[in-house]
Structures are given as structure tokens and as C-alpha cells.
């Protein structure tokens, strides 16, 4: 019986790879399995290679693994790129008409990859064709199933007496996933149920896709040799959701009461804004409908400028962006800082520098988020490690912004954004809303926006509030908000704002600053989306009797150094794991704790870490054979 299985489908962008993967994920989630899927794609609209790898497991999983159990390919590029990833005893289903396609026929290869591929085939004495590389895969122990996708369409076309169908290569995706499910002997009604639900919004084609699915499924059960894999149907765990990576922050914003989001299109952040706009009318308990204003602006400067303007009216407001957009926001961010404006920037990182790898993963903007700004002002930088965490964290970052009257940068990334995963239903009862010192009415005639108080936080008025008139300026100001260059006032105001950093560390509960997942002599320290592969790798090692500690830092600025010092005290060896080149969290640890982590495990190929890679590297560290800096490179 199979307990852990990775299925991969590839194809040119625009060929419906994602739809096929969604069908696969839905079917297995309804069979009671846990899902972790990831999508990889080029910065391109149509034609470049994209693929989706879905891992299904009986137990909780949080990441992908190295290797593929089953590969579906209806184009040559997918075979060339991923055939060597198919595991021993793995399965390939491919379009037999591709057999004689040569490496040089694939125009979308990057030159470097092409050269590597040709060298590989030459070194193994294989011809430079699909057939050649599949021979290698077969020699590695995989079983190869060939079927002409085109003939399937022709047969289906004849069967349904619909001549259009034989040219509808855009149904290859549905054929591919249906062939796989047939071969895996998954009950066909699960497949049909899912095809119906995925195409439910496209009534005109749902029927055709159902026919195609049935046809391909039956073909596989009849024609493919039984491979003897058996997936047992399980009870679906109660309250399980199947979610896309950006649902956490999106739904988090809705329940947190974020009523204004301005944004400029950028990958991979825009999905969130789309989600909010699609769900812009909100159902409110015992009240008329509410709404989220989602405004597409002319650039990221305008996006943050509008969000700040909105916040000044008392609205919980946010923007959502990625690295190249974030750096455009810095001047406005600084303005929000000096004016103590609560605003949330959801920061879906991708890989830089500059536009870097525009559609690939990275965690290389941490120091940028912490340090960029004009002058010195307080801010919070907070990171989420999973889709589910990002839901609760989103509701909290709005509280932090309101309570501490600071801009909050919520670090997310492409890995989370384009993953698909099962998780526990988000629990609304865990969400609370704290608007801090925001005023609803003012009776005194002497309101001053930046009045000094014991805790450094002044009661906050909003535009339109009677008796609450205030001034803001990007210049240093007095307590009313009027420009002041007085040196004594300057010191008071700097103290007022900067003292907030200590106050934040004092007020945010320790459990929200750092999560201690496990304890051990060897202790991992990390942040953000590495959480998933780290948790899975630790589990793998635990099964071998090796206990590894894991400290996940969520509050990255202000940096919780005393707490971290305390948590480190039980560990002998510290291992920093991050998806960047320099080990940016490591540098914060060096700076704050005067301690250099003993090991760094880094990955900056733009592809997310797999738990297998981490498992391998951690084993090396435990056995004392690792370099201080280990760099991971797996993934196409």
C-alpha cells in the first residue's frame, strides 16, 4: 500500500497543467490523503515550461520531496526536464508521438540546460531524443507507459461523433490526469466528481471534459499493465481544507477587518488582491453587508500612499507586493513611520536581485524589509511559515499595527504563494481584534495627535472625527503635528517613537515572537516558509532516532534577542536554514547575539527546499561531515 507518493505533470504554460494538478489534488484529498503541491513556472504567458508536483501522503506533510513517483508528459520538454527525476520503480506516462523529438527541436530550453542535457545523453551513449532519455529512465527501474494523446482524442471524437474534439489538444491536461488515476486504480467517480467541480464555472466545456476524463480513465484501466500500486480510501479528517498558498493572508485580511487594499500588479503578490476583489462584498454578523475596496494603482508608490491615506481615516488598510514593488514604497513607509500610521504591507518575496528570478522563490528580502527606510523609525517585520499560520498571523499583524501605531511588514514568499495544501480549517474563534488607542469620539477641545504619554503611544484620531483635528508631516513635528526643528523636541520625539521597539518586545507574547517546535543538541533556527521542509526533515530524522531542535523566528524586527538567547541555551550546535545566499537571519543573529551559527544550509536556485535535501544535509551535519555552509540545488 502506498503511503507517500509524488505525481508530476508538466507542459507549456497555458496548457492547463494547473487544472490537471488541481483535479489530482482534489481527488486525493477526497480520498482522505494529505496534499502538498507546488507550482513552478517561467516569467511568461504562453509556451514556456511549467510543471506541478503534487505530493500525497497518509500523514501530515508540509513540503515536497526529492524525486517523482509518477510523471505525466504530453510535451517533449517535460520529458527532457524531468525524466531523470523519476524514481526507481517510478512511472512515466508520455505521449508516444514524441518519441523521436530531438533535444534541438525544443526551442524553449535555456542554453545551459540544453548543453547539460546533451552532455548527459552523450555520456550515457543515448541518442539525443525523447526515446534516448526514456531509455535511461527505464534503465533506472521506472516503468514507461506510452499512449498517443492525439489518438485518444480522435477515438473520443469518433465515439462522441464530434469532429472538433480531435483537434482539442488543450484537453491533454485532463487526459493526462485521468490516465494517471486510471493506472493508479482510483475510483473513477472521484475523478468525475472533481472534473465536474473544477469546470463548474465553465458550463460549456464541462461535459466534454467529463467525457474525456472517462475515456482516458477507461483506456488506462484496460490497456496499461497493472502496476500493483494500491491507494486505500480513508476517512477524511474533519475540518480539512484544500487551499492555495495565498488564501491564508487573503482570508486573514477579510476577517481582520481590512477594508482597503491598494496594489500594483506583481508576481507572486497579485493573487491575493484578486482574491480580495473577487470576494469584495462581505457578509457581516447582524449588520448590512460590508466591503473591501481593492484599488489597482498606477505604481507601488501610489499603492502605499493610498493605503496610508486610507489608514488616516481609521480604516484597516494594506497593500501587497513583492521585492521590486516594496523598494518603491520605502519613502512612504518612512512617512508612515514618522507619523505613526498603522499600515500593513504583505510582502510576497521572490528571488532577486533586481527582477532576479521573477516567478521563483526566495527569502532574500529580509534585511531589505528590516533596514530600508529614510532615517530611523519603528516598524515590525513579521514572518509566516505556512498557509495556515499566515491566516492567524495576518489577523495579528493588523492588531500590531493598530496597537503599536507602526507600519508592519508581513513576510510571505513565492513558495507559500504557489503551493496547494490540505490544512485544518481556519478557526475564527481564535481571532480577536484590537484597535489599540484608536478613538471613536473626542470631547476635549485640546486634542493633540502626538501627545506624550507614559507608554509612548498617543490616542489616535482619524480624519473626519470631530474635535480630533491633527496635522501630519514627513518633517519632524511637535505634538500637534506641526513642523518643528527644535532640538529638544527632536530628542523627545525620537525617544517617543524609538522606545516603541522595546515596548513591542515587551508586549507581544513570547509565543508569538518565536515558535519552539522541538528541542535538541542540534538546533535549527529559521524563518518563514522553510518551516515546512524543516518540520518534515525533522520528522524523518526522528524516525531514525535523531532529535533535532527547531526554533522558528516570527518576529524578525524588533529582534527578540533575549528570548532567542534563552532558547539557544539548551543547544550545542546552531544550524541556520534560509532560502538566500548570505544567510540573512544568520547575520541578525551575529549582530544581536554576537554568535555565528555553526552551520548554514542555504538555497538560492529559486526553487523551494525539499525535506529530502534538508534531511540529507542535516544527517551530514550530525555525522560531522558537513561544510559550515551547505548549498542546496535540487529542482528543475
Amino acid at each position, binding site marked *: 500500500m502506498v503511503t507517500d507518493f509524488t505525481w508530476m505533470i508538466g507542459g507549456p504554460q497555458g496548457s492547463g497543467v494547473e487544472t490537471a494538478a488541481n483535479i489530482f489534488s482534489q481527488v486525493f484529498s477526497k480520498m482522505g490523503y494529505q496534499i502538498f503541491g507546488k507550482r513552478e513556472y517561467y516569467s511568461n504567458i504562453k509556451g514556456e515550461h511549467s510543471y506541478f508536483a503534487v505530493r500525497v501522503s497518509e500523514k501530515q506533510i508540509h513540503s515536497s520531496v526529492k524525486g517523482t513517483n509518477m510523471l505525466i508528459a504530453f510535451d517533449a520538454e517535460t520529458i527532457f526536464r524531468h525524466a531523470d527525476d523519476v524514481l526507481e520503480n517510478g512511472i512515466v506516462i508520455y505521449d508516444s508521438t514524441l518519441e523521436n523529438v530531438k533535444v534541438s527541436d525544443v526551442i524553449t530550453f535555456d542554453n545551459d540546460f540544453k548543453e547539460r542535457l546533451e552532455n548527459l545523453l552523450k555520456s550515457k551513449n543515448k541518442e539525443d531524443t525523447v526515446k534516448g532519455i526514456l531509455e535511461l529512465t527505464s534503465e533506472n527501474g521506472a516503468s514507461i507507459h506510452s499512449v498517443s494523446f492525439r489518438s485518444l482524442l480522435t477515438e473520443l471524437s469518433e465515439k462522441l461523433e464530434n469532429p472538433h474534439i480531435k483537434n482539442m489538444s488543450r484537453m491533454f491536461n485532463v487526459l493526462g490526469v485521468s490516465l494517471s488515476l486510471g493506472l493508479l486504480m482510483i475510483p473513477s467517480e472521484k475523478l468525475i466528481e472533481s472534473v465536474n467541480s473544477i469546470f463548474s464555472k465553465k458550463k460549456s466545456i464541462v461535459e466534454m471534459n467529463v467525457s474525456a476524463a472517462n475515456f482516458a480513465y477507461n483506456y488506462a484501466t484496460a490497456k496499461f499493465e497493472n502496476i500493483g500500486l494500491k491507494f486505500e480510501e480513508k476517512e477524511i479528517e474533519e*475540518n*480539512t*481544507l484544500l487551499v492555495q498558498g495565498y*488564501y491564508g493572508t487573503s*482570508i486573514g485580511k*477579510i*476577517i*481582520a*477587518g481590512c*477594508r*482597503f487594499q491598494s496594489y500594483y500588479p506583481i508576481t507572486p503578490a497579485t493573487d491575493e488582491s484578486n482574491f480580495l476583489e473577487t470576494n469584495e*462584498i462581505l*457578509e*457581516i*454578523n447582524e449588520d*448590512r*453587508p*460590508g*466591503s473591501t*475596496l481593492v*484599488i489597482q*494603482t*498606477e*505604481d507601488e*508608490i*501610489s499603492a*502605499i*500612499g*493610498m*493605503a*496610508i*491615506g*486610507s489608514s*488616516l*481615516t481609521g*480604516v*484597516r*488598510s494594506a497593500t501587497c507586493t513583492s521585492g521590486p514593488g516594496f523598494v518603491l514604497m520605502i*519613502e*512612504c513607509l518612512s*512617512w508612515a513611520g514618522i507619523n505613526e500610521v498603522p499600515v500593513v504591507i504583505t510582502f510576497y518575496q521572490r528571488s532577486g536581485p533586481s527582477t532576479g528570478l521573477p516567478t521563483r522563490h526566495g527569502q532574500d528580502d529580509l534585511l531589505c524589509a528590516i533596514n530600508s527606510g529614510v532615517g530611523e523609525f519603528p516598524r515590525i517585520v513579521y514572518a509566516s511559515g505556512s498557509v495556515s499560520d499566515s491566516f492567524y498571523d495576518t489577523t495579528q499583524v493588523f492588531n500590531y499595527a493598530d496597537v503599536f501605531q507602526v507600519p508592519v511588514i508581513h513576510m510571505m514568499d513565492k513558495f507559500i504563494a504557489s503551493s496547494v495544501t*490540505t490544512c485544518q*480549517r*481556519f478557526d*475564527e474563534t481564535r*481571532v*480577536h*481584534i484590537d484597535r489599540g488607542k484608536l478613538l471613536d469620539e473626542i470631547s476635549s477641545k485640546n486634542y493633540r495627535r502626538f501627545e506624550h504619554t507614559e507608554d509612548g503611544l498617543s490616542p489616535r484620531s*482619524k*480624519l*473626519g*472625527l*470631530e474635535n*480630533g*483635528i491633527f*496635522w*501630519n*508631516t514627513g518633517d519632524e513635528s511637535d505634538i500637534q*503635528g*506641526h513642523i518643528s526643528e527644535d532640538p529638544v523636541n527632536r530628542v523627545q520625539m525620537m525617544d517617543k517613537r524609538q522606545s516603541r521597539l522595546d515596548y513591542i518586545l515587551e508586549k507581544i507574547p513570547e509565543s508569538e515572537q518565536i515558535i519552539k517546535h522541538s528541542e535538541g543538541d542540534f538546533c535549527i533556527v529559521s524563518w518563514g516558509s522553510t518551516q515546512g521542509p524543516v518540520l518534515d526533515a525533522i520528522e524523518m530524522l526522528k524516525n531514525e532516532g535523531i532529535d533535532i531542535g527547531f526554533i522558528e523566528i516570527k518576529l524578525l524586527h524588533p529582534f527578540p534577542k533575549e528570548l532567542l538567547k534563552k532558547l539557544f541555551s539548551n543547544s550545542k550546535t546552531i544550524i541556520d536554514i534560509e532560502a538566500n545566499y548570505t544567510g540573512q537571519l544568520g547575520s541578525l543573529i551575529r549582530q544581536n547575539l554576537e554568535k555565528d551559527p555553526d552551520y548554514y544550509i542555504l538555497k538560492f536556485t529559486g526553487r523551494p527546499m525539499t525535506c529530502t535535501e534538508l534531511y540529507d544535509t542535516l544527517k551530514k551535519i550530525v555525522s560531522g561531515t558537513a561544510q559550515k555552509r551547505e548549498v542546496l540545488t535540487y529542482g528543475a
Partner: protein
Amino acid sequence: MALKIGDYKTEVHNDWCPGCGDFGIVNSIQMALAEMEIPRHQTVIFSGIGCSGKTSHFINVFGVHTLHGRVLTFAQGAKISNPNLKIIAVGGDGDGLGIGAGHFVAAGRRNVDMTYIIFDNAVYGLTKGQASPTLRLGEKTKSLPTPNTNYNVNPIGLAIVSGFTFAARGYSYDVRQLKDLIIAAVNHKGLAFVDVLQPCPTYNDINTKDWFSGVDRIDETTKKTMPRIYKLEDTDYDPVVHYSDETELNQKKTQAMIKSLEWDTKIPTGIFYKNELITPYTIRLTDKIPNYIENPSALQNISKNNVPITKINQILDSYKV
């Protein structure tokens, strides 16, 4: 209790140069607010950076002194969130038409119901007199090492082609007309632009107060000065788009464009273009969000006793396995 001009003044010391055209603009805004009797707490002045940026500190309503070029972004965010606010954004010509030109154009496309006043003096005063976007090609104001090598932007023309639905020009030494223009702009349903010619006595030694009043131009027969400025309202010029028709719209836009190009010996002030047939952004939002005007973001409750009141059940149910 009726509000007087004095109620709209703050005690903040005004540090503009003696003779600065900006004084006239601030006075006009204060006069306009007093005349319209808009409650102070429902009014917000957003300002950019530069001498004009300080305006918000001199007016006793909410004042948000933002960043160079960004004033419209802050102002629109506030207005869209709370459409009940009366919003006037102000800034210099370098602010709005140089560094902020992208926002200027985008704001026109939205047509958010608010007013934008540009203090137009053709120089960057606060940084000591560099050429700004409205300085003409070949002109050499006092502190320029060499004559200006750029062509000037036409603020009224740019506003109209960008989609502003109201475009007017005032002169800072004609406070009465300017006050009326500001009232008309604030009452306009849509995004209103007022370009105010405003001599910078310190750095613009070409377009001075004397130049505008034509001290250098003496009528041979009357021996009187011939002012360069004249008012559109004294002519038969009709800026209003009266009905929704392409010919009417094109005619009103073109005449405004041509009018806006007059310069040197004949400089028109007044309303160039006014079109209330284009829906303001705030109204457009009601197509998507039917109760937006009654229940905009700023008026929505989001929690009761710290518990969120937004229902997400339905959304979550749709992702249930």
C-alpha cells in the same frame, strides 16, 4: 455658529518669503472654506513638498503634509475610504507635474471627487530656484546657470487629456477670483484642477507680479499698462460640457486646449473646462459595491467587543475537502 475666515487659520508662523504668491492662495482657500461653511473636521488639506507643502499647517482643518509628488495618492486613498470628507490637495508645479506626473495622469483617469490646486511658479523655490516643468524653453530665471533646455508642460492641457473633469486657472494676486474658482472646484462633482499662477519673488525674475500686470507694456494711446492676464468669464467662452455627445465633448476639450496655449501677451484665467457627465470614481464604485456610499470603508464596523464580525464561513466552506 457661522464660521469666519479666522477660524480656518492656525497660529503656525508662516515662513514664506515676503511678497510670495503663496499667501494669496492660502487666503483664498481659507476664504472659500469659510464661505462654504464646511465644518473644519470634515475638511482635509493634503499637501506635497516644497514651499507650497507647508500650506496644510496654516489652515485650521485636518492637514496632511505628505511627500514630494505623492500628495494625490494619499488624498485619493482617504477620499475613497471616506467619501464624506471634503478634500483639497495642494502642491507645487514641480511636485505635481515633475516627480508626481504619473500620479497626476492616473488621478485624471479615476476622477475622484476632490480638488487639486497647483502653486505654479515655474521654479523649484525651496531648493533655490531650479527650472520646474512649467518654465519655458530657453528661459533663464535668476539662479539658473544656463537657459532652460526643456520644453514646458501645459498643466491645463495635461489635466484635460488625463481625464480631469474640471480645469481652471487662477492668479494668486486675484484672491477674489481665485476664491470663487476654488469654491467652484470643491463643488464640482469629480476631480477638479486649479492651476494657480503664483510669482516667486525670490527666484522667478521673469514671470513677476509686474510682468503679469504688464508694467512693461504701455498702451501707446492711453499710456496705461496692459495687463497680460484676462478673465475667461469676461468673454463669451463657455467651458461647460452640456450634454453627452462626442461632438460637444470634443469641441469643449479642444477649445480648452487651444485656450490653455495662450501665453505671453494674453494669459487667460478662469474655468477652461467643466464636465459633470463623467461619473466620479466614488460613484463608479457603487456598480461593484451597491451600498458603498452609505457604508464606505471608514464607516464599517469590523468587530464587536474585540470579536470579528465578518463572516468567512461561506468562503471556507468552498474549500472544504
